[in-house]
C-alpha cells in the first residue's frame, strides 16, 4: 500500500465508517456494532502496518527533515508574501515508503495537507488504535441509541488519528477542533446523571485552550523576522508565513534566528496553556474529574487513554520545538508546575471516595510527570534531558495503557453494583478472583512498580530531573509515597477485607469473556513495556532524541546568558583549564 494512502486512510477510514454506520438501519444492532468494531480494528491494523513500515524501511525512520525534503512540493516564486506556489518537482525522490504525505491544500496561505509519522507520533497512533479497539469492545454494553453512539465514536477515532499525524498547524488545529464535537455529544448524551454540565464544561475548557493554541499558531505565521541577515533553510530563504511544523522546527534551530526571544516566550506560553488544558495540568484540570465521572466507561477509556495524550503530544511536538528559547526561559516555572500537579493530583486522589474520580485525579498526577519530563531542560548534557522527554513519552504510553485499564475496571464494577462509592465496596478479591488479580496488576502498574510500565516512565523523569533541579526531583520522587498511599488504600477498600455493602445486593459474576479479552492486552502491555522498555524506546527514542537535539541546539544558539538568569545551578561542575589539560 502506498504510504500516502496508508496515512490518509488512517484518519479517513473511521470517518467513512461513521457514514456507513449512519446508513445502516437503526434496528440492526449487531450490524452497527460489527461494522464499528471492524472499522476500528482495520484502523488498528493500518496503524500496525505503519509500524511495520517504520521499523523496516530506512527511508521511513529517517529524520523528518530529510523526509520532508524528499517530499517537497513547493517552490518559491519571486516576490511577495504568502504567494508561494506549490507544484510537483520532478526528479525528487518520490517519497515512497517514508510515511509522509504532502500536498498543497490552501496554497494562498501556505497551508498544506501534510501528514507524517515519526517515532513520537507512531507510538501514539498505535496507542490510539489499541485503546479504541478495546473501547469499542467495551461499548458493546451501550444500549441507548447505538447508531449515533458508534458514528460519533468513529468520528472521534478518525480525528484523534488526524491530530497525531498532522504536520501542518492548520490541519492540526482542524482535527483538534473536530475532535471536540463527538466527545461533547458522547458525554452529553450517553453520560451519567450530571452529564450536561460535564460535557459543556469539557467543551468550553477545551475551546478556551484552543484559543491560545490558535494565537500561538498565528504568531508563528505572522511573527518573527528580527534578524538583519537572511535566514537560510534547506537552501531557501525563510520568511515566516508558514504552518509547516517541520520547517518551523528547523527555523528555530537554524544558525540565524527568525523568531526572537520575546516572541518565542509568548508562543511557548500560548501553546503551553492551550495544551495544559488538554493534559490536564493544574490549574486547568477541573474539567477532567467531571468529564470522567459522567462519561460512559468506553469514553472514559478513550478520554484517559488517548485524549489526554493529545495535550502531551502537543507539548512535545509543538510547544517545545516551535519555541525552544521561550521554553527554556520558562522551564523552571513549568517544571515546578509539573511537580505541583504531581503532588496535587496525588493528594486529591487520596481524599476521594468516588472510585472513578480517584482514578481521574491520578491522571492529573501522572500527567504532571509529562510536564516535568519535558521541562527538565539540562542543555549542558542533553542526554539527561533526552531521558526526561523519553520518560514523558513513555509515561503517555504507559498511562494510556494503565489508565485505560483502570477506567475499564471501574466500569466493570459500576456495571455490576451501580455504585462507585469506595465505602460500599470491599472483599471483591474473593468474589471475583480474576478481576481482583487483574486490578492489582494494573493498579500496581500505575503505581510505578518496577517490572511494570509506569515505573520506567516515572523513574526516567525523576532521574532526569536530578540533573536539572535536585529540589524539584526530590519533591517529584516524594510523590511515590502518596501514589503508593492512594493506590494501596484503594485496593484495600475495593478488593480486600470483608465484602462491602454494595456486594450484598447485586450479583457479582466473574469477568465475562468479552471483558477478559479487553483486559488481556492491557495486562500484557503493562508487563511487556515494564520489562522490556527498549521494545518501545528502540524506535521511539531516536525521534525524541532528535527533537531534543534541535531544542538544545536552538537554546544554545539563542544565547547562554539565560543560564545565568535561571535560578538553576548547572549541576555539572565546569572543569578548570588545568583539569581539561589533565583530561586530554
Amino acid at each position, binding site marked *: 500500500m502506498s504510504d500516502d494512502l496508508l496515512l490518509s486512510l488512517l484518519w479517513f477510514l473511521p470517518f467513512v465508517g461513521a457514514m456507513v454506520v449512519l446508513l445502516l438501519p437503526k434496528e440492526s444492532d449487531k450490524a452497527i456494532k460489527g461494522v464499528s468494531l471492524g472499522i476500528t480494528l482495520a484502523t488498528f491494523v493500518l496503524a500496525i502496518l505503519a509500524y511495520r513500515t517504520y521499523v523496516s524501511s530506512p527511508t521511513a525512520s529517517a529524520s523528518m527533515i530529510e523526509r520532508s525534503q524528499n517530499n517537497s512540493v513547493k517552490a518559491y516564486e519571486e516576490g511577495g508574501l504568502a504567494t508561494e506556489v506549490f507544484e510537483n518537482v520532478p526528479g525528487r525522490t518520490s517519497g515512497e515508503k517514508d510515511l509522509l504525505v504532502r500536498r498543497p491544500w490552501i496554497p494562498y496561505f501556505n497551508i498544506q495537507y501534510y501528514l507524517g509519522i515519526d517515532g513520537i507520533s507512531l507510538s501514539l497512533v498505535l496507542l490510539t488504535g489499541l485503546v479504541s479497539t478495546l473501547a469499542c469492545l467495551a461499548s458493546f454494553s451501550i444500549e441507548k441509541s447505538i447508531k449515533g453512539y458508534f458514528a460519533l465514536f468513529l468520528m472521534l477515532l478518525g480525528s484523534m488519528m488526524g491530530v497525531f499525524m498532522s504536520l501542518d498547524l492548520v490541519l492540526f488545529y482542524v482535527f483538534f477542533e473536530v475532535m471536540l464535537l463527538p466527545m461533547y455529544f458522547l458525554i452529553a448524551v450517553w453520560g451519567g446523571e450530571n452529564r450536561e454540565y460535564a460535557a459543556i464544561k469539557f467543551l468550553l475548557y477545551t475551546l478556551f485552550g484552543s484559543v491560545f493554541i490558535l494565537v500561538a499558531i498565528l504568531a508563528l505565521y505572522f511573527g518573527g523576522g528580527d534578524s538583519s541577515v537572511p535566514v537560510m533553510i534547506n537552501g531557501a530563504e525563510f520568511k515566516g508565513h508558514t504552518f509547516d511544523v517541520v520547517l518551523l522546527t528547523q527555523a528555530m534551530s537554524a544558525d540565524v534566528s527568525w523568531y526572537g526571544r520575546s516572541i518565542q516566550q509568548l508562543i511557548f506560553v500560548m501553546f503551553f496553556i492551550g495544551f495544559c488544558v488538554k493534559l490536564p495540568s493544574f490549574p486547568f484540570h477541573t474539567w477532567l474529574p467531571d468529564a470522567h465521572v459522567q462519561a460512559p466507561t468506553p469514553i472514559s477509556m478513550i478520554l484517559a487513554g488517548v485524549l489526554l495524550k493529545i495535550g502531551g503530544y502537543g507539548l512535545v511536538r509543538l510547544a517545545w520545538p516551535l519555541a525552544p528559547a521561550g521554553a527554556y526561559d520558562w522551564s523552571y516555572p513549568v517544571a515546578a508546575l509539573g511537580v505541583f500537579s504531581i503532588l496535587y493530583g496525588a493528594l486529591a486522589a487520596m481524599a476521594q471516595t468516588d472510585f472513578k474520580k480517584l482514578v481521574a485525579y491520578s491522571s492529573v498526577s501522572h500527567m504532571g510527570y509529562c510536564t516535568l519530563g519535558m521541562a527538565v531542560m539540562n542543555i549542558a548534557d542533553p542526554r*539527561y534531558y533526552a531521558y526526561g522527554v523519553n520518560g514523558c513519552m513513555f509515561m503517555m504510553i504507559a498511562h494510556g495503557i494503565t489508565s485505560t485499564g483502570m477506567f475499564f475496571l471501574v466500569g466493570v464494577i459500576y456495571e455490576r453494583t451501580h455504585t462507585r462509592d469506595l465505602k460500599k465496596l470491599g472483599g471483591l478479591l474473593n468474589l471475583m478472583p480474576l478481576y481482583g488479580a487483574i486490578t492489582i496488576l494494573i493498579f500496581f502498574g500505575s503505581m510505578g512498580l518496577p517490572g511494570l510500565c509506569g515505573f520506567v516512565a516515572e523513574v526516567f523523569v525523576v532521574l532526569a530531573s536530578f540533573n536539572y533541579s535536585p529540589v524539584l526531583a526530590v519533591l517529584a520522587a516524594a510523590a511515590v509515597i502518596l501514589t503508593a498511599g492512594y493506590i494501596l488504600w484503594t485496593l484495600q477498600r475495593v478488593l480486600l477485607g470483608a465484602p462491602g455493602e454494595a456486594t450484598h445486593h447485586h450479583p457479582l459474576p466473574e469477568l465475562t469473556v468479552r471483558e477478559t479479552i479487553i483486559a488481556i492486552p492491557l495486562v500484557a502491555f503493562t508487563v511487556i513495556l515494564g520489562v522490556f522498555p*527498549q521494545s518501545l524506546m528502540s524506535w521511539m527514542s531516536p525521534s525524541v532524541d532528535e527533537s531534543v537535539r534541535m531544542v538544545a541546539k536552538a537554546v544554545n544558539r539563542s544565547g547562554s546568558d539565560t543560564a545565568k538568569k535561571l535560578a538553576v545551578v548547572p549541576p555539572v*561542575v565546569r572543569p578548570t583549564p588545568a583539569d581539561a589539560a589533565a583530561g586530554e
Partner: protein
Amino acid sequence: MKWQVGLYVVAVLVPLVAFVVELFAGRILKRWNALIATGAIGLSFVLSLVGLASYFGNAEGVFAHHGAHAEASEHGDAHAAADDHAAPKADDHAAPKADDHAAPAEHGSSEGHASAVPPPPLIWSGEFNWVALGGDAMPGEARSRQSNIDLVIPFGVHIDNLTVIMFSMVTFIALLVHLYSMGYMRDDPRFPRFYTYLSLFCFSMLGLIVSKNVFMIFMFWELVGVCSYLLIGFWYEDKKNTDAANKAFITNRVGDVGMLLGLGLIWAYLGTFDIDEINRSILDASGRHNVAMVDGQEVVRLIAPAGEGAEAGKPLIEPATNLPRQIPLWLLTIAGLGIFAGCCGKSAQFPLHVWLPDAMAGPTPVSALIHAATMVAAGVYLVGRFFPLFTETALVCIAYTGGITLFVAASIAMVQSDYKKVLAYSTVSQLGFMMLGLGVGGRAAGLFHLVTHAFFKALLFLGAGSVYHSVHTYDMHALGGLQKKMRGTALTMLIATLAISGVPLFSGFYSKDAILASSIHFVFQEGRYEHILLFLLPAVGAAMTAFYMFRMWFLVFGGEARGFTPEQIAAHEAERAAHASAHHDDHAPGHAHHDDHGHDHATDDHGHAAAAHSHGHGHHFDPNPALHAHESEPLMLWPLYALAVLSLVAGYPLSILPIPGFHPILESLISYGEPIAAPDLGASHLLAMGASLVIAVVGIGAGFLFYSPWKQFRKLDPAWFARRYSWLNEFLHKKWYFDELYAFLLIRPTLALARGITWFDKRIVDGIVNGSAQATAALSRFEGFFDKVAIDGLVNAVARFTFGAGEQGRRLQTGKLRDYLMFLALAVVGLFAGLIAWVMGSGGNV
C-alpha cells in the same frame, strides 16, 4: 563470559519460571504448586552450591586477608602466593611505604603494578543494555568524538565473594522455609497461592543479590517489597493485616524516596549506576575518597583504579561531554545518606523501623524468610556492597542510626508479651547491630553478623511457628513448660537463643564480637572518644538481647503450663460472642447471592470462612493451650535441626580456640577483596571478647534472676519492677510512642492536606471556573438590560427583537450554553485585540 555467570542467571530465573507456571496453572496444579516452588528453589540452591564451590576454588588469596601467616601452611601453593601478596597490607603501613615493600616482580603479579591495594578479587559479571538512549540528543561534535554515546542503564549480574555467600544463604533458608511451610500452611485454603508468592519473592531476592548496578537493586528492592506486602496481607479478610501490609509498603516507599535521591545524584554526576565501577574508582590508593578542590569546593573524582596500568590514578572523563566525572563531597554524603535511607526502610532502621513488628501479621514462615533472614537484611547488604560510596560523615550517621535502632528495639523487646513480637523487635535490634558494625568501619563484621543472624533468627521464627502451630496463641504468659511437650523445638530454640545472646562457641558470639571489636577500635584505638555511645549502645544492647531472649525461652519453654488469666478468658468469650453475631449478619446476604449464582462462589465463600476459621480466634479456644501441646511433624522439625547446626558452627574460626589473631572462616571469606582495606583491629579483638563475655553473663544472669523456672535462681519479680517503674513500662509498651508520633506528625496532616486540596479544588478552582461563567452570564444580562433602557427609544424594535430572541434561545438551550459561548467569544475577541495591539505596538517587527 564465564559459565558461572550463566549458572547464576539460571539460578535466579528458575524461581521466576516457577512463579509464572504457578500463576497461570495454579488452578489446575492446586497443591502441586508447593512442589514446583520447592523444586525450583531447591534447584537454585544446588546451583548456588556449585557456584560457591567454583568461586572459592578459583579465587586466590581468600584466606590471606588477616593473620595470613597462621593459615598459610594449611593451604595450597596458590594461596600461599596470594598470602605473600597481601602481607604488606596486614602490616598496616602507610601507603607509600607499602609500595616500596611490595616489589612487583617477586609476587609474579602479571599486571606489574604494586600498591597497598589488594589484588582485585575474582569477579564474574556480564551485562546487557536494558535501556540506551540520549546519544542522538548530543550535538554533532560529541558524536564525532565517540560513535556510541548513549546514556545506558544496563542489566547485569555481578558475582563476587559476598554475592556467592549471600546467594547460598538465601537459597538455603528459602528451601527450608518452603519445606517447613508444607507442614505449617497445609490447612490454609490459599495454600497454592502462598507458594506462588514465595516463588516471586525468591526470584526478586536472588535478583537483588546478583544485581550489578544499584538501579537494578532498586527495582528488585521494590519487588521484594511488593512480595512482602502480598504476604503480610496474606490473610486479607482481616483489616488489621492489610493495614500492616500497607504500612510496610508505604514506610518502605519513604525510604525509597531517599534511595531515588541517591540514585539520581549518582547518575547525574557520575553517569553510571554500576556499583563495582564506582567502588573501584572512587577511592585513591590510600583507600580514601579521591578529593580535589574545584572552584573552592571539595569534589570527589572518579579515577582510573589501580590495575589499569599507566592510566591508574588519572581522572575518568565522560566521553560525551569531555568533563571529568566528579561529585561535590557534600552531595556525595547526601547521595550516600539517600541510599542509606532506602536501606533504613528495608532493614527497618530507626526512624523507619515501625513497619517490621506490624509485619508479623503475615504467616510465620514468611516472617522467618522475608522479615528476619533475607529481605530485611538487604539494606545491610547494600550498605556493604556499596561501602566505598559512603563518606565519613555518612558512615557516622549510619553507625548512630544502627546504635539507636538496636537500643530502642531491644528495650521494647524486653516488655513484649507476644513471643513473635519479641523476635520482631529482636530482628530490628540485630539489624541495628549490623548497621553499627558497618558504620564504624567493620564492613566484614557487619556482613558476617548478617549471615549468622540469618541462620539463628530464621531458626527462632520457625521455632516460634512450630510453637504457634501447636498452641495457637502468641501470648507467652499463657504458655510455659513446653520443653517437655516439644523437645526438638525447645532444644533448637535454645541453641538459637544461646547464639543470639552471644555465648561463646555459638555463631552469634563470633559475629557480635567482630562488631564490638570494630566499635572498640573506632572509639578507643582511633581516639574518637566523643563517639563513646557507639560502644555503649551495642554493649548495653547486647546485654538486653541476652536478657529478653532468655526471658522468652523461659516463659515459653520453662516451668509449668500457666494458661490464660481468668480476665483473658472472659474477654475472649465476650469477643467471640460479638464476632459470632457479626459473622452471622455478614454472611446472610453472602449466602443469598451464592444461591443466585451457583457454585463458583460457594468455594470462595468457603475459602473465606475457612481462612477466618483457622487464623482468627479459632473455634477451639483452649484456656491452657500449653497443656495440650504436641511436637510438630518432622517436615517442620528437620528445617529446625538443619538451622540449629548452622547456628552453632557458622561462626567458627579455623582453630576452635579463640587465640589472638584467629579469624572466623566466614568473616575471612567476606572480607576477601574488600574495597576498603579493613583496619587492623589488633588488641580490640581481645577487649571485645572480654566485653562480650561480661555482657552475655550480665544479660543471661538478669534473665535467670527474673524469669528462670528454678526458684533458687529467681530472685527478682518482674511484676514489682513493672509497678515500681510503671512510666517506663508504659513507655516501652507503647513502643516509645512512635506510631502515635507518626500519626500526629505525618499521617493526619497528610490526610488533612488531601481533604483540604479536595475542598480547594471543588470550591476555589472550580469556583473560579463556574464563577467566571456566571459573571459572563450576568454581563450578558446587564447588556440586555442596558440595551432595553438606554437605546430603547432609538432601536426599540430591534432591541426587543434581540432580547426576545435571546430569551427564546435561553429557553431552548435550557442550560447556560449561550452565556458560556458569549464568554468564549469575548475571550477570543479580547485575545485577538491584544495580539493585534501588541503586533502593531512593536512596529510589525516582532
